[in-house]
């Protein structure tokens, strides 16, 4: 790798290599039965250069000698017409400074065999089907070991190993004309990850949803569970992205220091949490991880950045430069601002009391169509995939064919209560439950 860096630096002012080596073992159950065991091994490298002040980029799964020459020449080709670089690669991390490197590796995960994953998957199915044997489960257990190395011509970068254990499970119950689906997703970088609690959570939600309740179209209080908050979070992630803000396409652009949402709302991005799936000691550009306040007490504090976007905006990278490809392998993509573990801070209210305070309303727990509408404006219009009707403070059943719509920033200024406990949703973000005073609900007449 050092050779490749040297070769690249000979014909450019600066260069950076990103190398990844990973092994993923997914074990898949379909309809309560073990279906498939896989092993996916990935090697790849991406080269980024700054030549005559312009950025060039290339990537390859082949890191042999001829491939290295191909990488260098492809990067040089794109640098000729590339974007002017507004950054320098980071130098070596300060020694002896405060260390924020989170724990993201556990040998226990690295040593997990396919057979052990099969056993865990079977346990998940046993728990979910215990009360209702006619439930059909799909389960995927996956363990991943990844080694990332970043090196640049400023002697910056570093390397780390990360392990993850993730579980995705869904329960399908078909009764008469009703198809009822509950799903959950969770994971950890630590081997103590409790796959059974994921199964128990599904079982509990199935129990709550067996009875169907009716909803009529109109405006009413709506409570979003941490899972249900997903569409709002997607809109916030777009609005707080340094790139969206720099383009002026974010409704929050130019509003730093202003009160933008209810003072009970604070939002952070935090890759420094031990064991969390989104954690890492450095981002995809070798910038050290740190916790970034985005909104505090409803006041906009800043946006999240990668190196180039920060350079263009006259800011510093927040350590949010990640390589995430829409197609192909992640290392095929150039770094762009992205969140790690997004967090909405908890409030002061008791969840049970929040539900008890609703005279007539709904709880949104699982949605369809998140991120589908006009994400930029924060408008959402979602199908309530799993939700519950509340009447006089009691959950009376599951709602069907129901949509909830609103605008993210507007509703975050129309909050009735924020629960005092933040929970992980899908292993991706931490959020409390939020009760909104009044939202548009559309239901199909029956």
């Amino acid at each position: 790798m050092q050779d490749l860096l040297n070769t690249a630096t000979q014909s450019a002012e600066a260069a950076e290599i990103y190398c990844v080596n990973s092994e993923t073992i997914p074990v898949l159950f379909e309809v309560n039965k073990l279906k498939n065991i896989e092993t996916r091994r990935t090697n790849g490298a991406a080269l980024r250069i700054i030549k005559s002040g312009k950025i060039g980029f290339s990537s390859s799964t082949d890191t042999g000698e001829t491939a290295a020459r191909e990488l260098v020449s492809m990067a040089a080709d794109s640098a000729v017409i590339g974007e002017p670089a507004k950054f320098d690669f980071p130098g070596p991390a300060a020694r002896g400074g405060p260390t924020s490197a989170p724990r993201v590796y556990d040998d226990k995960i690295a040593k997990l065999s396919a057979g052990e994953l099969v056993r865990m998957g079977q346990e998940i199915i046993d728990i979910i089907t215990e009360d209702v044997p006619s439930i059909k489960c799909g389960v995927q257990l996956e363990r991943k070991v990844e080694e990332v190395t970043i090196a640049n011509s400023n002697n910056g970068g570093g390397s780390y190993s990360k392990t993850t254990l993730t579980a995705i499970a869904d329960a399908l119950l078909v009764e008469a004309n009703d198809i009822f689906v509950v799903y959950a997703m969770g994971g950890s970088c630590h081997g103590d990850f409790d796959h059974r609690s994921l199964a128990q959570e599904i079982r509990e939600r199935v129990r709550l949803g067996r009875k169907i309740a009716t909803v009529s179209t109109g405006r009413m209080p709506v409570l979003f569970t941490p899972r249900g908050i997903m569409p709002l979070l997607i809109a916030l992630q777009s609005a707080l992205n340094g790139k969206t803000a720099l383009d002026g396409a974010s409704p929050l652009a130019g509003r730093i220091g202003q009160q933008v949402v209810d003072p009970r709302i604070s939002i952070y991005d935090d890759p420094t949490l031990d064991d969390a799936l989104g954690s890492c000691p450095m981002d995809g550009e070798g910038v050290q991880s740190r916790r970034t306040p985005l909104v505090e007490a409803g006041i906009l504090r800043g946006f999240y950045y990668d190196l180039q976007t920060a350079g263009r905006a006259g800011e510093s990278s927040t350590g949010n430069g990640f390589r995430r490809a829409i197609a192909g392998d992640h290392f095929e993509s150039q770094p762009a601002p992205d969140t790690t573990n997004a967090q909405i801070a908890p409030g002061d209210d008791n969840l049970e009391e929040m539900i008890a305070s609703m005279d007539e309303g709904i709880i949104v727990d699982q949605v369809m169509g998140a991120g589908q509408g006009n994400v930029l404006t924060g408008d959402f219009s979602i199908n309530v995939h799993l939700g519950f009707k509340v009447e006089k403070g009691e959950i009376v059943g599951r709602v069907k064919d129901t949509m909830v719509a609103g605008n993210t920033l507007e509703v975050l200024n129309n909050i009735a209560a924020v629960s005092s406990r933040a929970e992980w949703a899908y292993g991706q973000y931490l959020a409390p439950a939020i009760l909104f005073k009044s939202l548009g609900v559309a239901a199909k007449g029956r």
Partner: protein
Amino acid sequence: MVQNLIKDALKSHGADYVEIRIEDHVRTKISLRGRGTDELSTSRSVGGCVRALASGGWGFVSFNDIEHLKDHVTLAVSQARLVGRESGDCLLAPVEPVTDTVVPTLIVDPRSITLADKLALLEEYNQIMLGYSPKIQTTTVRYRDTYSKKYFANSEGSYIDQEHCDVGASCRAIAREGDNVQQMFVTSGGVDGYQSVEGQHNSVKDCARRAVENLDAKPVKAGQYTVVLDPALAGVFVHEAFGHLSESDFIYENETLRNIMVLDAQFGAPILNIADGAALPGHRGSYRYDDEGVPSSVTPLIRDGVLVGRLHSRETAGKMGEKPTGNARAINYRFRPIVRMSNTYIENGDTSFEEMISDIDEGIYAIEAYGGETTMEMFTFSAMEAFMIRKGKIAERVRNVVLTGNVFETLMHIDAIGNDRKMSDGGVGGCGKGAQSPLPVSDGSPHIRIRNVVVGGN
């Protein structure tokens, strides 16, 4: 050389069935954003996978080190045995072994165009949008081309060498007035070469105009409406709402769902005809052989409102006692093939657009889609652009139109089908299923009218 390596690895594996895919993809990506270049890169991805069936269980290994192919076969077979011991009951539908070579017919090979020329074309599009109005806040222009060489071989004696080219572009205009931000995008592309993304200047300009005009659109009032879908949105509808239910891996192991998707059952009015097929040439979902080496076909799914067919891999076909349809696809060598759509469409009917809207007192005309999603029987999809229909005429613009419903009820509520079918082949995205996204597909339809659709709104 690859052929010898594969043939050697297929000797003495000890499994019931083994298949090997080796692929080489070269991809160019260009993204412009506002006045800057966001991404400009070339990447090469070479790798392969082995899938093994032993005692009725599957094992799968993917890798980049092709030279160790034999070891990967051994690992895949041992994983397959582990699955086979627990729950092996997989049976492959028989197909004839094939030896073939497929090379695409390209009008303009994207590999013959320099990166600088590609960038110059995209910059033209970008300037048209940025210069259209001061209300255009920003833009994104994204371009991808991928040239793939795929080798397929299995232990039954098939050896297929296929090359494939996919080119796509997407231009998005973002208009802003205060807090109001509206966006529109147009796509172009295809499998027959670079010319498919050229000459889009007028449609790109129109895209900017529509984004600006949408600033003045009022949010739609929630409720139930009669909705007319344009061919692009109707295509997304047929893909999302019905197509996914036709993928047999969704039902083959599940008796309850099989009882819903039962052949010969009435799913729509007699005017409704739906089909899927990769053998339909010239679209993004077109190919000669799928990733199990099965020849592609065109599969009628609904004929005169009645369910007549579904999409299969060799496994689902074997289990259900039906014929493979050539719909087992993987996005690349990192993944095993699963049942996917290819080109999915509603066939032409005989109602003109004017007739379709003429007797609607209050309804919605919904055009193109931001996206769509289904979970079993429920679907949602969001219109990019929409107009009210009042007293049989297209009236004012509305926005935030998201349609949702139950697939089965909604199919029954399609009461008019146009005679102007159009396929959508553009863009840089595709279909997602499980972890596999984006897969190039095409979908299309004529205009269709649906009664009683729930539209979300404030």
